[in-house]
Protein backbone atom coordinates (compact mmCIF):
# COMPACT_ATOMS: atom_id res chain seq x y z
CA UNK A 1 0.00 0.00 0.00
CA UNK A 2 1.34 3.43 -0.86
CA UNK A 3 2.44 5.54 2.06
CA UNK A 4 1.81 8.68 0.06
CA UNK A 5 -1.31 10.66 0.91
CA UNK A 6 -2.56 13.37 -1.40
CA UNK A 7 -0.07 15.64 -3.14
CA UNK A 8 2.94 15.86 -0.84
CA UNK A 9 2.26 14.00 2.40
CA UNK A 10 3.58 10.63 3.55
CA UNK A 11 2.40 8.55 6.50
CA UNK A 12 4.89 6.04 7.83
CA UNK A 13 4.04 2.35 7.99
CA UNK A 14 5.25 2.23 11.58
CA UNK A 15 5.77 5.31 13.78
CA UNK A 16 9.43 6.33 14.06
CA UNK A 17 10.50 6.95 17.65
CA UNK A 18 12.40 9.99 18.88
CA UNK A 19 14.50 8.33 21.58
CA UNK A 20 16.16 11.50 22.83
CA UNK A 21 16.84 15.14 22.02
CA UNK A 22 19.57 17.53 23.12
CA UNK A 23 20.29 21.24 22.83
CA UNK A 24 23.26 23.51 23.34
CA UNK A 25 22.77 27.29 23.16
CA UNK A 26 24.63 30.56 23.69
CA UNK A 27 24.37 32.96 26.61
CA UNK A 28 21.67 35.21 25.09
CA UNK A 29 19.41 32.23 24.44
CA UNK A 30 20.13 31.08 27.98
CA UNK A 31 18.83 34.41 29.28
CA UNK A 32 15.64 34.08 27.22
CA UNK A 33 12.24 32.80 28.38
CA UNK A 34 13.27 29.17 27.64
CA UNK A 35 16.71 29.58 29.21
CA UNK A 36 16.33 26.95 31.91
CA UNK A 37 15.01 24.34 29.45
CA UNK A 38 18.16 24.02 27.37
CA UNK A 39 20.58 21.22 28.23
CA UNK A 40 23.74 23.29 27.98
CA UNK A 41 24.14 27.09 27.98
CA UNK A 42 27.55 28.24 26.77
CA UNK A 43 28.66 31.59 28.13
CA UNK A 44 31.65 31.83 25.78
CA UNK A 45 30.56 32.62 22.22
CA UNK A 46 33.86 31.12 21.01
CA UNK A 47 33.40 27.90 23.01
CA UNK A 48 37.14 27.89 23.52
CA UNK A 49 37.76 27.72 19.76
CA UNK A 50 39.81 29.97 17.50
CA UNK A 51 37.06 31.02 15.08
CA UNK A 52 33.29 31.53 15.10
CA UNK A 53 32.95 28.71 12.60
CA UNK A 54 34.86 26.30 14.83
CA UNK A 55 32.65 27.45 17.72
CA UNK A 56 29.53 26.52 15.75
CA UNK A 57 31.03 23.10 15.00
CA UNK A 58 31.63 22.68 18.71
CA UNK A 59 27.92 23.38 19.33
CA UNK A 60 27.04 20.58 16.90
CA UNK A 61 29.52 18.19 18.48
CA UNK A 62 28.25 18.85 22.00
CA UNK A 63 24.59 18.48 20.98
CA UNK A 64 25.28 15.20 19.17
CA UNK A 65 27.40 13.79 22.00
CA UNK A 66 24.73 14.61 24.56
CA UNK A 67 21.93 13.25 22.39
CA UNK A 68 23.79 9.95 21.93
CA UNK A 69 24.34 9.74 25.69
CA UNK A 70 20.67 10.48 26.48
CA UNK A 71 19.49 7.89 23.94
CA UNK A 72 21.39 5.10 25.71
CA UNK A 73 22.58 3.91 22.32
CA UNK A 74 26.21 3.57 21.30
CA UNK A 75 27.37 6.05 18.69
CA UNK A 76 28.48 3.12 16.54
CA UNK A 77 24.86 1.92 16.41
CA UNK A 78 23.73 5.01 14.54
CA UNK A 79 23.47 4.25 10.85
CA UNK A 80 23.54 7.86 9.64
CA UNK A 81 23.95 11.39 10.88
CA UNK A 82 21.87 13.91 8.96
CA UNK A 83 22.84 17.50 9.67
CA UNK A 84 22.58 20.97 8.23
CA UNK A 85 23.49 24.58 8.96
CA UNK A 86 23.65 27.95 7.23
CA UNK A 87 27.33 28.12 6.38
CA UNK A 88 28.87 27.60 2.97
CA UNK A 89 29.50 23.90 2.38
CA UNK A 90 27.84 23.17 5.76
CA UNK A 91 31.17 23.58 7.55
CA UNK A 92 29.40 23.96 10.89
CA UNK A 93 28.13 20.39 10.63
CA UNK A 94 31.15 18.98 8.79
CA UNK A 95 33.78 19.87 11.36
CA UNK A 96 31.43 19.17 14.24
CA UNK A 97 30.73 15.63 13.04
CA UNK A 98 34.13 14.70 11.64
CA UNK A 99 35.22 12.88 14.80
CA UNK A 100 31.94 10.97 15.09
CA UNK A 101 33.03 9.03 12.00
CA UNK A 102 29.53 7.87 11.12
CA UNK A 103 27.94 7.83 7.64
CA UNK A 104 27.00 11.46 7.06
CA UNK A 105 24.30 13.09 4.97
CA UNK A 106 24.74 16.86 4.81
CA UNK A 107 21.57 18.78 4.02
CA UNK A 108 20.78 22.37 3.15
CA UNK A 109 17.31 23.76 3.65
CA UNK A 110 18.39 27.02 5.29
CA UNK A 111 16.58 27.35 8.62
CA UNK A 112 14.26 24.44 7.74
CA UNK A 113 17.16 21.99 8.20
CA UNK A 114 15.72 20.35 11.32
CA UNK A 115 12.43 19.65 9.54
CA UNK A 116 14.20 18.31 6.48
CA UNK A 117 16.44 16.14 8.67
CA UNK A 118 13.59 14.71 10.74
CA UNK A 119 11.57 13.97 7.60
CA UNK A 120 14.45 12.30 5.73
CA UNK A 121 15.63 10.39 8.80
CA UNK A 122 12.14 9.06 9.49
CA UNK A 123 11.72 8.04 5.85
CA UNK A 124 15.04 6.16 5.94
CA UNK A 125 14.03 4.28 9.09
CA UNK A 126 10.52 3.56 7.82
CA UNK A 127 12.02 2.32 4.57
CA UNK A 128 14.19 -0.10 6.52
CA UNK A 129 17.47 1.55 5.51
CA UNK A 130 18.60 2.07 9.09
CA UNK A 131 17.54 1.54 12.70
CA UNK A 132 19.01 4.56 14.47
CA UNK A 133 19.64 7.96 12.95
CA UNK A 134 20.90 11.19 14.42
CA UNK A 135 19.53 14.50 13.13
CA UNK A 136 21.10 17.86 13.96
CA UNK A 137 20.88 21.50 12.92
CA UNK A 138 22.90 24.48 14.05
CA UNK A 139 23.47 28.19 13.67
CA UNK A 140 25.67 30.78 15.37
CA UNK A 141 24.95 34.50 15.55
CA UNK A 142 28.52 35.48 14.68
CA UNK A 143 29.03 33.07 11.76
CA UNK A 144 25.71 34.15 10.26
CA UNK A 145 26.52 37.87 10.66
CA UNK A 146 29.92 37.30 9.06
CA UNK A 147 28.55 35.33 6.11
CA UNK A 148 25.26 37.11 5.49
CA UNK A 149 25.68 40.66 6.79
CA UNK A 150 28.67 42.61 8.03
CA UNK A 151 31.68 41.99 10.28
CA UNK A 152 30.55 41.72 13.87
CA UNK A 153 32.15 44.97 15.04
CA UNK A 154 30.91 47.02 12.07
CA UNK A 155 28.37 49.51 13.26
CA UNK A 156 25.05 49.39 11.42
CA UNK A 157 21.36 49.59 12.12
CA UNK A 158 18.89 46.89 11.15
CA UNK A 159 15.19 47.47 10.59
CA UNK A 160 12.58 46.19 13.10
CA UNK A 161 11.72 43.36 10.66
CA UNK A 162 15.20 41.81 11.00
CA UNK A 163 15.63 38.65 13.04
CA UNK A 164 18.33 37.64 15.50
CA UNK A 165 20.22 34.47 14.53
CA UNK A 166 20.12 31.94 17.35
CA UNK A 167 23.42 30.58 18.62
CA UNK A 168 22.66 26.94 19.23
CA UNK A 169 22.50 23.39 18.00
CA UNK A 170 19.69 20.91 18.47
CA UNK A 171 19.86 17.18 17.91
CA UNK A 172 17.39 14.30 17.90
CA UNK A 173 17.98 10.55 17.93
CA UNK A 174 15.50 8.72 15.72
CA UNK A 175 14.95 5.07 16.44
CA UNK A 176 12.92 2.27 14.82
CA UNK A 177 11.65 1.08 18.19
CA UNK A 178 12.33 3.51 21.05
CA UNK A 179 10.59 6.47 22.55
CA UNK A 180 7.19 7.63 23.75
CA UNK A 181 7.27 10.41 21.20
CA UNK A 182 7.05 9.42 17.55
CA UNK A 183 7.13 10.84 14.05
CA UNK A 184 4.14 9.49 12.14
CA UNK A 185 4.29 11.41 8.88
CA UNK A 186 5.52 14.45 7.05
CA UNK A 187 4.75 16.84 4.25
CA UNK A 188 7.73 17.89 2.13
CA UNK A 189 7.25 21.52 1.12
CA UNK A 190 7.57 23.13 -2.30
CA UNK A 191 9.81 26.14 -2.83
CA UNK A 192 7.55 29.17 -2.73
CA UNK A 193 8.53 32.60 -4.04
CA UNK A 194 6.27 35.38 -2.81
CA UNK A 195 8.45 38.02 -4.47
CA UNK A 196 10.02 39.34 -1.27
CA UNK A 197 13.48 40.79 -1.94
CA UNK A 198 14.25 42.26 1.47
CA UNK A 199 16.87 40.12 3.25
CA UNK A 200 16.01 42.01 6.44
CA UNK A 201 12.47 40.67 6.33
CA UNK A 202 12.84 36.91 6.12
CA UNK A 203 9.69 36.30 8.13
CA UNK A 204 7.72 37.82 5.27
CA UNK A 205 9.67 35.78 2.71
CA UNK A 206 9.03 32.51 4.55
CA UNK A 207 5.38 32.97 5.57
CA UNK A 208 4.20 31.96 2.09
CA UNK A 209 6.09 28.66 2.22
CA UNK A 210 4.75 27.90 5.70
CA UNK A 211 1.20 28.68 4.57
CA UNK A 212 1.52 26.49 1.47
CA UNK A 213 2.93 23.51 3.37
CA UNK A 214 0.41 23.72 6.24
CA UNK A 215 -2.48 24.09 3.80
CA UNK A 216 -1.27 21.19 1.65
CA UNK A 217 -0.76 19.00 4.71
CA UNK A 218 -4.27 19.63 6.01
CA UNK A 219 -5.78 19.04 2.57
CA UNK A 220 -3.73 15.91 1.90
CA UNK A 221 -4.91 14.32 5.12
CA UNK A 222 -8.30 16.01 5.13
CA UNK A 223 -7.75 17.45 8.59
CA UNK A 224 -8.95 20.45 10.56
CA UNK A 225 -6.19 22.52 12.23
CA UNK A 226 -7.63 21.59 15.64
CA UNK A 227 -6.37 18.02 14.99
CA UNK A 228 -3.09 19.37 16.35
CA UNK A 229 -2.50 20.73 19.86
CA UNK A 230 0.01 23.07 18.28
CA UNK A 231 1.15 24.01 14.79
CA UNK A 232 4.70 25.18 15.33
CA UNK A 233 6.57 27.17 12.70
CA UNK A 234 10.34 27.60 12.73
CA UNK A 235 11.44 31.21 12.66
CA UNK A 236 8.75 33.41 11.11
CA UNK A 237 8.91 35.81 14.04
CA UNK A 238 6.22 38.42 14.67
CA UNK A 239 5.94 39.72 11.09
CA UNK A 240 5.98 36.29 9.46
CA UNK A 241 3.51 34.79 11.92
CA UNK A 242 1.09 37.66 11.36
CA UNK A 243 1.37 37.13 7.59
CA UNK A 244 1.01 33.34 7.90
CA UNK A 245 -2.27 33.70 9.79
CA UNK A 246 -3.53 36.19 7.21
CA UNK A 247 -2.54 34.00 4.24
CA UNK A 248 -4.22 30.93 5.70
CA UNK A 249 -7.32 32.89 6.68
CA UNK A 250 -7.76 33.82 3.03
CA UNK A 251 -7.76 30.09 2.26
CA UNK A 252 -10.41 29.52 4.90
CA UNK A 253 -8.00 28.00 7.42
CA UNK A 254 -7.79 29.45 10.92
CA UNK A 255 -4.75 28.38 12.96
CA UNK A 256 -4.73 31.43 15.25
CA UNK A 257 -5.77 29.30 18.25
CA UNK A 258 -2.95 26.77 18.09
CA UNK A 259 -0.11 28.44 16.16
CA UNK A 260 3.25 28.91 17.83
CA UNK A 261 6.56 30.12 16.42
CA UNK A 262 9.94 29.07 17.79
CA UNK A 263 11.42 32.45 16.80
CA UNK A 264 8.89 34.18 19.06
CA UNK A 265 9.25 31.66 21.91
CA UNK A 266 13.04 31.75 22.25
CA UNK A 267 13.58 35.46 23.05
CA UNK A 268 11.81 38.15 25.00
CA UNK A 269 11.56 40.97 22.48
CA UNK A 270 10.94 43.59 25.13
CA UNK A 271 14.10 42.96 27.11
CA UNK A 272 16.43 41.24 24.61
CA UNK A 273 16.30 43.65 21.65
CA UNK A 274 15.74 40.82 19.17
CA UNK A 275 13.30 42.73 16.94
CA UNK A 276 11.37 40.21 14.80
CA UNK A 277 12.51 37.28 16.97
CA UNK A 278 14.99 34.43 16.68
CA UNK A 279 16.02 32.75 13.44
CA UNK A 280 18.57 30.28 12.11
CA UNK A 281 18.67 26.48 11.90
CA UNK A 282 19.45 26.35 15.61
CA UNK A 283 16.29 28.26 16.52
CA UNK A 284 13.61 25.64 15.91
CA UNK A 285 16.08 22.77 16.48
CA UNK A 286 16.84 23.84 20.06
CA UNK A 287 13.28 24.97 20.85
CA UNK A 288 11.92 21.64 19.64
CA UNK A 289 14.59 19.65 21.47
CA UNK A 290 14.20 21.40 24.81
CA UNK A 291 10.70 22.82 24.88
CA UNK A 292 8.20 21.02 22.68
CA UNK A 293 9.72 17.53 22.86
CA UNK A 294 9.64 17.53 26.70
CA UNK A 295 6.05 18.81 26.53
CA UNK A 296 5.14 15.82 24.37
CA UNK A 297 6.92 13.49 26.81
CA UNK A 298 5.11 14.95 29.80
CA UNK A 299 1.76 14.80 27.97
CA UNK A 300 1.27 18.58 28.06
CA UNK A 301 1.02 18.18 24.30
CA UNK A 302 -0.29 15.13 22.47
CA UNK A 303 0.17 15.92 18.82
CA UNK A 304 2.03 18.71 17.04
CA UNK A 305 2.72 19.72 13.48
CA UNK A 306 6.30 20.93 13.48
CA UNK A 307 6.95 23.22 10.49
CA UNK A 308 10.55 24.51 10.25
CA UNK A 309 10.86 27.31 7.71
CA UNK A 310 13.84 28.32 5.58
CA UNK A 311 14.71 31.26 3.33
CA UNK A 312 16.66 29.91 0.38
CA UNK A 313 18.91 32.84 -0.41
CA UNK A 314 22.52 33.90 -0.39
CA UNK A 315 23.90 37.44 -0.15
CA UNK A 316 24.92 36.96 -3.80
CA UNK A 317 21.44 36.11 -5.08
CA UNK A 318 19.96 39.06 -3.18
CA UNK A 319 22.62 41.43 -4.58
CA UNK A 320 21.80 40.14 -8.06
CA UNK A 321 18.22 41.25 -7.55
CA UNK A 322 16.66 37.82 -7.07
CA UNK A 323 13.75 37.46 -4.71
CA UNK A 324 13.96 35.09 -1.75
CA UNK A 325 12.34 31.68 -2.39
CA UNK A 326 11.42 29.89 0.79
CA UNK A 327 10.58 26.41 1.97
CA UNK A 328 8.83 24.76 4.89
CA UNK A 329 8.54 21.08 5.77
CA UNK A 330 5.84 19.78 8.10
CA UNK A 331 6.58 16.87 10.44
CA UNK A 332 3.81 15.19 12.45
CA UNK A 333 5.07 14.40 15.93
CA UNK A 334 2.84 12.81 18.55
CA UNK A 335 2.73 10.64 21.64
CA UNK A 336 2.92 6.96 20.83
CA UNK A 337 -0.44 5.25 20.69
CA UNK A 338 -2.81 8.25 20.84
Amino acid sequence: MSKKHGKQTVVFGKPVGIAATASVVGAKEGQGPLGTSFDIVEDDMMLGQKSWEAAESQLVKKAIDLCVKKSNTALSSFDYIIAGDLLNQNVGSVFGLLEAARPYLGIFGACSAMGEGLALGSMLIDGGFGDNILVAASSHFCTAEKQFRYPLEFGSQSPPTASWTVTGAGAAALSHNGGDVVVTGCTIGKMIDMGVKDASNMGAAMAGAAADTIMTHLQDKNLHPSHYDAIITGDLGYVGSDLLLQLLKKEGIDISQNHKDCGIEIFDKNTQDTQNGGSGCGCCATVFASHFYPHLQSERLSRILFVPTGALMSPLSVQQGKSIPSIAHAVVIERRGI
Partner: protein
Amino acid sequence: MKTDKKQYKEMVKKASPKSSTALNCMRAFFVGGVICAFGEVLHNIYEALGASKDHVGAYVAITLIFLAIMLTGIGKYDNITKYAGAGASIPITGFANAMSSPAIEHKKEGFILGVSAKLFTIAGAVIVYGTLSSMVVGLVYFLVQKFSGG
Protein backbone atom coordinates in the same frame (compact mmCIF):
# COMPACT_ATOMS: atom_id res chain seq x y z
CA MET B 1 -2.72 30.09 -2.96
CA LYS B 2 -5.35 32.76 -3.33
CA THR B 3 -2.91 35.58 -2.58
CA ASP B 4 -0.81 36.79 -5.53
CA LYS B 5 2.57 38.54 -5.30
CA LYS B 6 1.08 41.99 -5.73
CA GLN B 7 -1.48 41.52 -2.96
CA TYR B 8 1.22 39.98 -0.79
CA LYS B 9 3.47 43.00 -1.25
CA GLU B 10 0.72 45.17 0.23
CA MET B 11 0.18 42.72 3.09
CA VAL B 12 3.92 42.71 3.89
CA LYS B 13 4.01 46.50 3.84
CA LYS B 14 1.15 46.65 6.34
CA ALA B 15 2.53 43.90 8.59
CA SER B 16 6.11 45.18 8.77
CA PRO B 17 6.88 47.72 11.51
CA LYS B 18 8.93 50.70 10.37
CA SER B 19 11.91 52.38 11.97
CA SER B 20 11.10 55.75 13.48
CA THR B 21 12.70 58.27 11.09
CA ALA B 22 12.20 61.23 13.44
CA LEU B 23 13.79 59.45 16.39
CA ASN B 24 16.68 58.15 14.25
CA CYS B 25 17.31 61.66 12.87
CA MET B 26 17.38 63.12 16.36
CA ARG B 27 19.80 60.50 17.63
CA ALA B 28 22.02 60.93 14.55
CA PHE B 29 21.99 64.71 14.98
CA PHE B 30 22.88 64.47 18.66
CA VAL B 31 25.66 61.84 18.45
CA GLY B 32 27.07 63.19 15.17
CA GLY B 33 27.10 66.64 16.76
CA VAL B 34 28.92 65.36 19.85
CA ILE B 35 31.60 63.70 17.69
CA CYS B 36 32.12 66.89 15.66
CA ALA B 37 32.12 69.08 18.79
CA PHE B 38 34.72 66.76 20.29
CA GLY B 39 36.76 67.25 17.11
CA GLU B 40 36.56 71.02 17.69
CA VAL B 41 37.73 70.57 21.28
CA LEU B 42 40.70 68.56 20.04
CA HIS B 43 41.33 71.24 17.43
CA ASN B 44 41.54 73.91 20.12
CA ILE B 45 43.74 71.79 22.36
CA TYR B 46 46.24 71.08 19.58
CA GLU B 47 46.24 74.74 18.58
CA ALA B 48 46.85 75.76 22.20
CA LEU B 49 49.71 73.28 22.34
CA GLY B 50 51.29 75.21 19.50
CA ALA B 51 50.58 72.98 16.48
CA SER B 52 50.74 74.83 13.18
CA LYS B 53 47.49 75.53 11.26
CA ASP B 54 48.51 73.02 8.56
CA HIS B 55 49.02 70.24 11.07
CA VAL B 56 46.09 70.69 13.45
CA GLY B 57 43.55 69.09 11.08
CA ALA B 58 45.71 66.02 10.64
CA TYR B 59 46.24 65.67 14.39
CA VAL B 60 42.49 65.86 15.02
CA ALA B 61 41.77 63.26 12.34
CA ILE B 62 44.47 60.91 13.64
CA THR B 63 43.12 61.16 17.19
CA LEU B 64 39.50 60.51 16.15
CA ILE B 65 40.54 57.57 13.96
CA PHE B 66 42.61 56.11 16.79
CA LEU B 67 39.75 56.39 19.27
CA ALA B 68 37.23 54.89 16.83
CA ILE B 69 39.48 51.91 16.08
CA MET B 70 40.11 51.40 19.77
CA LEU B 71 36.36 51.43 20.46
CA THR B 72 35.88 48.99 17.56
CA GLY B 73 38.53 46.71 19.01
CA ILE B 74 36.88 46.55 22.41
CA GLY B 75 33.48 46.00 20.81
CA LYS B 76 31.81 49.32 21.62
CA TYR B 77 31.66 51.30 18.38
CA ASP B 78 28.98 49.06 16.84
CA ASN B 79 26.75 49.81 19.83
CA ILE B 80 27.18 53.55 19.27
CA THR B 81 26.25 53.21 15.58
CA LYS B 82 23.32 50.96 16.43
CA TYR B 83 21.98 53.81 18.54
CA ALA B 84 23.04 56.77 16.41
CA GLY B 85 22.96 55.39 12.83
CA ALA B 86 24.37 57.90 10.35
CA GLY B 87 25.42 60.13 13.27
CA ALA B 88 28.22 57.67 14.00
CA SER B 89 28.82 56.19 10.54
CA ILE B 90 29.22 59.39 8.49
CA PRO B 91 32.01 61.09 10.52
CA ILE B 92 35.60 59.92 9.99
CA THR B 93 35.15 57.66 13.03
CA GLY B 94 32.58 55.63 11.07
CA PHE B 95 35.05 55.22 8.24
CA ALA B 96 37.66 53.99 10.71
CA ASN B 97 35.13 51.49 12.05
CA ALA B 98 34.33 50.31 8.51
CA MET B 99 38.04 49.66 7.86
CA SER B 100 38.99 48.08 11.16
CA SER B 101 35.97 45.82 11.74
CA PRO B 102 36.59 43.58 8.67
CA ALA B 103 40.29 43.48 9.56
CA ILE B 104 39.44 42.13 13.02
CA GLU B 105 36.76 39.77 11.69
CA HIS B 106 38.91 38.21 8.97
CA LYS B 107 42.17 37.85 10.89
CA LYS B 108 41.27 34.15 11.21
CA GLU B 109 41.72 33.78 7.44
CA GLY B 110 45.31 35.09 7.60
CA PHE B 111 47.00 38.44 6.94
CA ILE B 112 47.03 38.19 3.12
CA LEU B 113 43.68 36.61 2.21
CA GLY B 114 41.97 37.73 5.41
CA VAL B 115 42.99 41.09 6.87
CA SER B 116 44.41 42.85 3.81
CA ALA B 117 42.03 41.43 1.21
CA LYS B 118 38.90 42.13 3.28
CA LEU B 119 40.04 45.51 4.63
CA PHE B 120 38.19 47.42 1.90
CA THR B 121 35.03 45.30 1.63
CA ILE B 122 32.87 48.00 3.19
CA ALA B 123 35.06 51.09 2.80
CA GLY B 124 35.97 50.28 -0.82
CA ALA B 125 32.70 51.63 -2.18
CA VAL B 126 33.15 54.87 -0.20
CA ILE B 127 36.67 55.31 -1.59
CA VAL B 128 35.69 54.54 -5.21
CA TYR B 129 32.65 56.79 -5.31
CA GLY B 130 34.31 59.45 -3.15
CA THR B 131 37.15 59.65 -5.65
CA LEU B 132 34.79 59.55 -8.63
CA SER B 133 32.55 62.31 -7.31
CA SER B 134 35.54 64.52 -6.49
CA MET B 135 36.73 64.03 -10.09
CA VAL B 136 33.32 65.09 -11.39
CA VAL B 137 33.29 68.16 -9.14
CA GLY B 138 36.84 68.98 -10.28
CA LEU B 139 35.82 68.69 -13.91
CA VAL B 140 32.80 70.95 -13.43
CA TYR B 141 34.96 73.47 -11.59
CA PHE B 142 37.51 73.38 -14.42
CA LEU B 143 34.84 73.92 -17.10
CA VAL B 144 33.14 76.73 -15.17
CA GLN B 145 36.50 78.45 -14.75
CA LYS B 146 37.34 78.03 -18.44
CA PHE B 147 34.04 79.32 -19.85
CA SER B 148 33.55 82.10 -17.34
CA GLY B 149 36.92 83.40 -18.48
CA GLY B 150 38.38 83.11 -14.99
